[in-house]
């Protein structure tokens, strides 16, 4: 038998009470979330750092001489994205010093570029024997460039303007047809 609890003088099933949405999901919050996601996606810009110096609070994109890339806040225990030879990993910074950046717990997220096509073609015939990469040591002398990843204000503004207008028109259409 379902457990019941009091709410506003009425007995309602506990399970129903626990649900954040027990009926219709409001149109406003749904559109708001959708707009927020659309506005914020892809609205960043990269600003080159001339002397290559960066702080652990800054989100950066580090490109190494051999094409490897490291993205995120380079701080101990911080989560970063690392790509090498067309494979993108997500991992944790275990140590940072003037000489090296050490990553651990790297988990493959996706393959990108031409390598992805090869991987897809060979997927059925490949035998995976190697364990996930546990540690990568990146020498700072191999850094080719450092770029700060920052929010692109004007672009966010433009996108916000458009998607707000789109949301208003969508609400008007739904209201007319309801």
């Amino acid at each position, binding site marked *: 038998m379902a457990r019941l609890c009091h709410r506003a003088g009425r007995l309602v099933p506990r399970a129903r009470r626990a649900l954040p949405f027990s009926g219709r999901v409001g149109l406003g919050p749904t559109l708001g979330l959708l707009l927020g996601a659309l506005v914020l996606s892809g609205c960043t810009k990269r600003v080159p750092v001339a002397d290559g110096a960066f702080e652990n609070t800054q989100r950066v994109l580090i490109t190494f001489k051999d094409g490897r890339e490291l993205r995120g806040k380079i701080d101990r225990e911080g989560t970063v994205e690392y790509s090498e030879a067309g494979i993108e990993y997500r991992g944790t910074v275990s140590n940072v010093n003037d000489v090296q950046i050490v990553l651990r717990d790297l988990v493959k997220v996706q393959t990108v570029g031409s390598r992805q096509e090869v991987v897809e073609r060979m997927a059925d015939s490949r035998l995976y024997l190697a364990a996930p990469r546990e540690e990568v040591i990146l020498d700072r002398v191999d850094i080719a460039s450092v770029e700060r990843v920052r929010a692109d204000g*004007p*672009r966010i503004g*433009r*996108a916000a*303007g*458009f998607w707000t*207008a*789109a949301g*208003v*028109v*969508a609400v*008007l*259409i739904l*209201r*007319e*047809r309801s």
Partner: protein
Amino acid sequence: MNRRRILTACAAAAAPAATAILLLFGAPTAARSQGGGVVHVDLGNISVSDVVGLNPSLYYRPFDDLGVRPSAAAMALGGAFLARASGPAAIGWSPASLAEMEDGELFVDGSLHSGSSQTSGYPAELTIPGAGSIFTTGYRVDPKSGARPSAAAGALPIWRSGEMRLVGGLSWRRQYDVSYPEEIVNDFVFGGVTSFPVVLTRDRKERGGVEAIGPTLAFRVSPQFAVGANLNALTGRWRATSAFDIDVGAPVPPGGERLTYVYDGLSFDLGARFALGNKIAVAARFSPAHTLEVSGGAYHSESVAAPGQPQFIVDAKVVGYEMEIPSAFAVGGMIRPLPRLAVSADLTSRNWSETKLSYTGAGPDSPFSLPLDLPLVDVASLHVGVEYVVWQPSWGEVPIRVGFRSSPLSFSDMDSTDVSVNDGDPVFGGDEIDTSAISAGFGVTTGNVTFDFGAERTSYEIQKIYFDSPGGILASGGNDFLTVDRSITSMRFSATYRFGAGTP
């Protein structure tokens, strides 16, 4: 005592449907008293023409396919946009212009309408039997303001080979505007020793119209020439909801009225565009004749429930009908004498008077029904617009626009020489309502987004029946025609978002 008599008289006045029915159909054989002073009248199936006897404003439905076309830039240019249209907004103008698109684009468009009126010819004094006279201190028939969606569209190139290109699009847009919401406010004062105000209001909200949903294909044959076509699945629902209120210092349950139509059909637009670089362009659009089916038609009204006065409840079903809407043609040109200056002009034409009407099923029940008729009149319009880019900063450009258009309505005015809506003559047998509109606006293009704003003001004179009461009000014995000088202000906002590698 006087308040009670006035209330009773006003309640009768605010039951125009019932009054008109008595005149239109003779003794309401379907009427039955349900006790408590309620008289329920079920008219059964009636013709759309009979709606003029229920409420002339519910019958008055000009089909506007000029002011509804998308883009605030188009509105600012007075609708001279056929050869100027670009991006997904072009779907509503010339589908061929879609072929110039380089990358995928999204487009949204909405508008805001408000209006005001000056009314003349209303009675200054009404006599209420046994209660004396009440004097009019004000009478307004104002268009109601409101926001409306106009279009949402997207398009992208789907095939390229050399100079040739195929672009596909998908859109929702308003095809015909049929909404004319109004608010009537009649202020009186009872002129006895102890004078007090009396206010009658009739507030009619309207939503919906004829919408078009469908795909578009445009093919660029060469850099100079392109063709395109829209397939429009016509759909939509129009709903009118009125509320009658009497404020005479005593609580009175309000009356109400509602009518709904559902639209259904299929149409095409064909377009062609010829351009010499960005200096000169001409474009044409042809929309073949098509059928629009109008169904729904559920009518219901309840008069104000005043003490001592029977409340009339009226139900009817407007019989479904088909409109064979004639073809439309538009041609436009654009010339750019200076790099920053563009001048454009359009001509459009649709012979609405050739619209053929027929019932989709059995006709109305009553032999006294008026013949199936909508007094639609031909519409030919001229549009002229000028655009000048006033500012070209590093982040984009800002053009300003002005325009003019003649914009006759497709429904003829009331014939003020007619003495009654119930004498068998078409009460809307008057002249064409010829109007013109001036417009202005500006645009901002920055990065991958363009915002446009346009405003338009149109003015015209129209005949109305006093308090929309076709049987006369307060036993005045006939129709009281009013002249309404009306001004409509429309504002439109549109936004375009471009995807693709060329996006800064």
